[in-house]
């Protein structure tokens, strides 16, 4: 009997070990700590949803997401959202006509962070060997409220800053418990020393290699809301983008891109998609041809990474329906210089421009079968 017990104990131990190893392997997601973020929501108690993210700090682009998967319930498979997501360029033209900078095009390094940037008390953890990335897990406020019933939500935020000489750009990626992703760029630090009182723009161009449910079979539609003020009715339209091109955002039409996979459906049989919606205060336009559109859609090409080259990428338009697509989004911060930015003291600039943000939201559409984060 004693021998039997020992054998059974060994069997149990071996099985447990294999399970541990298997679980660890599944969590790797092709990257290893500290470049892996595996975040379940809610942060305590029974899990409901989960993100699995790989990232890399890269000179120039800053914080780059190299993979992102979302699990809409503990029993659901992980669904890939990003193959790669990055700030591809930040264009900075001054109102006087010059200078005109391509800030990512310098290859600026990321700035090492410290406890003031990423306090543990605020849910922060500094990641990566160079300490360039902060992970914050935080309350995101009300998800829904219905009389006395309410649900608050959580999000995991990854951010890092690039040191663009006098300016700093904070590159932020937010992954929420309901599958929403926010991409934002914040511009801060000191005004340009040569012309510190000249207004200017900061125009980030994001390159979003979205591979819903794997990389083939994706299509992009322009979604518009149309409501003539001469009538009472409104319509919402979706137009397939058939070939590589740039698209305009129209605030009167709530223009958004609708990115959909050919096979991914929820259990209701509805096609699952993500909506790309701008979060912006205005629309930057300049002489440069790459600033003439707010959205671009191209076919995946690993050699096409530069936002400033978008017009050349679409000059011979390839088909982008039901294929492997890349979506680009161009936003803008309009920096009207103000006394609060700083002043010259003895020939030296004193002061800091407080951070200004621009970005976008990626929102699931028919990804869940019913209201998420709901009893």
């Amino acid at each position, binding site marked *: *009997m004693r021998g039997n017990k020992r054998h059974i104990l060994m069997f149990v131990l071996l099985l447990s070990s294999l399970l541990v190893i298997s679980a660890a392997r599944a969590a790797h997601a092709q990257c*290893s700590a500290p470049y892996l973020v595996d975040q379940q929501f809610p942060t305590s108690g029974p899990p409901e949803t989960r993100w699995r993210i790989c990232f890399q700090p890269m000179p120039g682009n800053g914080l780059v997401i*190299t*993979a992102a998967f979302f699990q809409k319930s503990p029993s659901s498979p*992980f669904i890939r959202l990003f193959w790669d997501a990055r700030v591809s360029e930040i264009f900075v033209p001054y109102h006087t006509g010059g*200078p005109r900078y391509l800030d990512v095009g310098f290859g600026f390094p990321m700035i090492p962070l410290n406890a003031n940037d990423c306090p543990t008390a605020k849910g922060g953890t500094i990641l990566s060997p160079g300490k360039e990335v902060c992970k914050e897990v935080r309350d995101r406020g009300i998800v829904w409220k219905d009389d006395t019933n309410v649900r608050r939500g959580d999000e995991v935020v990854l951010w890092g800053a690039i040191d663009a000489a006098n300016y700093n750009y904070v590159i932020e990626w937010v992954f929420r418990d309901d599958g929403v992703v926010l991409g934002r760029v914040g511009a801060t630090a000191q005004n340009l020393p*040569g012309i510190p009182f000249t207004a200017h723009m900061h125009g980030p161009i994001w390159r979003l290699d979205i591979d819903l449910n794997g990389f083939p079979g994706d299509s992009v539609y322009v979604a518009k809301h149309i409501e003539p003020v001469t009538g009472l009715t409104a319509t919402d339209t979706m137009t397939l983008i058939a070939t590589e091109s740039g698209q305009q955002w129209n605030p009167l039409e709530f223009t958004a891109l609708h990115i959909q996979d050919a096979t991914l459906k929820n259990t209701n049989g509805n096609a699952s998609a993500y909506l790309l919606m701008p979060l912006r205060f205005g629309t930057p336009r300049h002489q440069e041809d790459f600033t003439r559109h707010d959205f671009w859609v191209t076919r995946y090409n690993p050699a096409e990474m530069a936002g400033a080259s978008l017009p050349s990428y679409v000059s011979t338009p390839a088909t982008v329906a039901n294929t492997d697509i890349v979506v680009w989004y161009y936003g803008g911060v309009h920096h009207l210089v103000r006394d609060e930015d700083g002043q010259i003291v003895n020939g030296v600039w004193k002061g800091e421009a407080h951070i200004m943000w621009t970005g976008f939201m990626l929102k699931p559409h028919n990804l869940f079968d019913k209201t998420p984060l709901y009893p």
Partner: protein
Amino acid sequence: MSPLRVLSHILHAGRVHLLSGALSITVVLLVPTALADRFVPPIPQRQVQSLDPLTSEETALAARIATTDPRVKESLGEGRSQLVQVQFVALKPNVYQASQEPDQLKTGRHATVLFYRYDNDQGILVIVDLEKRSTGEITRVEGRAVPLAFEEITQASNLALRNERVRSLLGSRANDFRVANLSAGERPENRIEGLRVVATSPRDPCYRHRCIDLLFRQREGYIVGTSVTVDLTSQVVRVERTAR
């Protein structure tokens, strides 16, 4: 006695400590010894996953493969060129695998190596397969999409620091100013930083040239009121007073 009854007996006999301790020991000792010979190749101290950043060895290897490749040499021509950047890239496999489990996609290890040609304001982007130690696609890139290399800002600052108007601007501390290698964590008190200039008009002397605006930062802040632009293509330094 059935296995379940034995397990129950072990647990109820207050042997949880034994079980958990043995579990830990097993994870550390038993599994590698039991399985290594049959399933697992020798594991290096830190196994690089396919989406981990390039190691310094991989970065050096990618640069070496690209710079010695005859096709790359031909693309760079005989004129002046600069190795600008080695970056990680995750290439998608040619064959799509239906499973969505992320660790089932084998992407290998690749890098892009980017060069700049001064003679025609063009970039040469080379994809390097680090596992096969070979070059793949070579693509021409617009000059404006090619970042500046650290070496280029050093060249620009050397040119600027030889300019009398720049030395006058910096005064007695001119010799103290130097370019900081920010990637290496350097933050000297008197440092030179650079911003990439993009000219869109053919009338601009920087049009299709490699130009950098230099900024001079002291401990107290940036020196204001003057712009210093270095044209690396023509090796010219332009200094202009700007309105305060």
